[in-house]
């Protein structure tokens, strides 16, 4: 049943493109929206156990090794939410019909790739779906073919290729050691020989590759350039889904289902996470370009996810997964807000902007909600995930890292408040006197994402009771 999550986007893509392309152009948008809504429904229904039938049942005659668990469901859910928001924003921003259709076709590929990533139980298939998602994102980033973007995407391709080689090397070593490529078989072998040099090398190499793909701090060189120069909907997509799923979700899968998640690995993960949290926040505080600030903030927030994972206990992994979902929601919302500001004011330089809240009240409010959620203000959703991560770090005895996470939270609040002050508060400058809100098409996704942030924050304590642990 869950197989359809991969096959349906694939067949839709073929059907929409091949026979009656001209006729299908208008249908593509609505069809993708329906698919995403269905995905949200199925993912939520599975986690809370709405359905009486087994969603993992295979469809004759295909026998893929797919398996859905609560882990994969969170990935499916965040993919659907962010893709939906990006789709709505793209419909408003991209005016040409042909261009929009191509954009939506690529979103279908991203949907198939990231759903496969969330559902597969085989390390080689995982690699293939990572590549599908990344390659589609290369094309999306260079969609406008501007010089700056092409330079940034070249950097991304080269670093991504290095990560790919490392990943393949590691998969080859896992295959050598265990003779198979599915998660459970590798895990069974690795339990018996935890400190073999080959296994440690393969694990380390795979983790390094995922750090590059996720843009964590020592490997982040490509990320700020790509995020800040990509077209606005693509930035939201990259920050919300692609780097999170390809890098961080895969890291979680690897550590939880495949390798032996013991102390040496935990220490490395904690260190890299803490470095990203602090250095990302400090770098974000020094930026004047709105999108670049968001890019560094993204590195910092990914650091939180990795810190939660590094705590190693069930609470930490849950916090990490919850923060992954929250981050994809509020960061997409912030990138959509930045697109609105750039579209209406013509600049992203925060020192040139000012006093926009009087003229753009909706954008200002959604931006404030998302910023406060990122900084971990109660009762927004970001507060709960950060709280869980800090509690998990404390419970696992990493008191220093827990304190660091709290202090970096204050730093996050500082740079977001500074951003709000420079962009939205104060007296409006003369050149922006005639500015007004963008159309409904761009306000809708930002409002929806903000509603999710507030709603999830309010109902989270009740949700926790319903979840199947």
């Amino acid at each position, binding site marked *: 049943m869950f197989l359809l999550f991969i096959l349906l986007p694939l067949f839709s893509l073929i059907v929409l493109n091949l026979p009656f392309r001209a006729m299908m152009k208008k249908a593509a948008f609505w069809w993708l929206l329906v698919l995403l809504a269905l995905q949200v429904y199925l993912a939520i229904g599975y986690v809370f156990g709405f359905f009486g039938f087994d969603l993992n049942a295979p469809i004759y005659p295909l*026998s893929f090794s797919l398996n859905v668990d609560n882990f994969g469901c969170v990935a499916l859910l965040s993919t659907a939410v962010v893709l939906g928001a990006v789709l709505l924003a793209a419909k408003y921003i991209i005016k040409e019909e042909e261009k929009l259709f191509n954009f939506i076709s690529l979103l279908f590929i991203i949907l198939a790739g990231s759903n496969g990533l969330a559902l597969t139980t085989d390390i080689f298939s995982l690699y293939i779906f990572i590549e599908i998602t990344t390659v589609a994102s290369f094309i999306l980033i260079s969609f406008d073919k501007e010089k700056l973007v092409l330079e940034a995407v070249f950097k991304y391709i080269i670093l991504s290729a290095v990560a790919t080689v490392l990943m393949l090397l590691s998969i080859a070593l896992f295959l050598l050691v265990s003779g198979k490529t599915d998660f459970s078989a590798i895990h069974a072998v690795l339990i018996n020989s935890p400190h073999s*040099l*080959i296994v440690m090398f393969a694990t380390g190499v795979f983790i390094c590759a995922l750090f590059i793909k996720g843009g964590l701090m020592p490997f982040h060189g490509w990320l700020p350039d790509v995020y800040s120069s990509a077209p606005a909907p693509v930035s939201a997509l990259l920050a919300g889904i692609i780097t999170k799923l390809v890098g961080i979700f895969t890291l979680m899968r690897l550590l939880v289902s495949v390798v032996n998640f013991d102390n040496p690995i935990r220490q490395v993960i904690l260190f890299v996470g803490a470095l990203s949290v602090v250095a990302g926040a400090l770098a974000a505080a020094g930026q004047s370009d709105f999108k670049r600030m968001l890019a560094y903030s993204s590195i910092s927030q990914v650091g939180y996810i990795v810190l939660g994972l590094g705590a190693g206990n069930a609470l930490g992994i849950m916090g990490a997964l919850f923060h992954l979902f929250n981050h994809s929601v509020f960061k997409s919302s912030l990138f959509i807000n930045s697109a609105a500001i750039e579209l209406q004011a013509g600049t992203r330089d925060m020192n040139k902007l000012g006093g926009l809240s009087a003229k753009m009240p909706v954008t200002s409010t959604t931006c404030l909600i998302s910023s406060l959620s990122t900084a971990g203000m109660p009762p927004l959703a970001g507060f709960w995930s950060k709280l869980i991560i800090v509690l998990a770090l404390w419970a696992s005895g990493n008191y220093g890292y827990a304190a660091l996470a709290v202090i970096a939270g204050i730093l996050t609040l500082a740079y977001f408040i500074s951003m709000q002050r420079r962009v939205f508060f104060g007296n409006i400058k003369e050149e922006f006197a005639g500015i007004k809100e963008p159309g409904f098409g761009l306000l809708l996704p930002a409002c929806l994402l903000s509603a999710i942030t507030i709603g999830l924050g309010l109902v989270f304590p009740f949700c926790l009771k319903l979840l199947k642990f």
Partner: protein
Amino acid sequence: MLITLDIVILILMILAALWAVMTRSLLRSGIALALTSAILSVLMFKLNAPLAAVFELSVCTGLISVLFISTISLTQPLSYEEIIKHMKDRFRRFRYLPVIVILAGIGLSFVKVRPNLILPPPETETNVRNILWNFRSLDMVGQVIVLLCGVFGVVILFKERVKK
């Protein structure tokens, strides 16, 4: 004796790879890359992996090289002066490389690798159809999506440029 032959082939492959990286002409670089993968496929054949060797030979040596060479033939080569200018600082960048390789080799020779592992027997399935359609069918779907992705990339990024 057989292992020595493998090592000779391996060294040949490394030389061809070095040629691919170091040569000044893009075309020769493409040919050297094809040569590298051709030697690699010989090595694979010798190590009892005939299927991998066939794929390596047909895809990497054949198909990819054709793509590379046809693309290179569309570009404009540098003038002689520009090549000389490029070559000057080209080798300077690599002068520490042999030293690093030798030092790393000496360092690694002190490390005793004890795998502590009982390796499983290699897979005995030789029927490609069975492997591709029964065991790795999900990867086949992935392959189809990758191909579509490539097609879209070409259409979106290069189609308009021709119009201009």
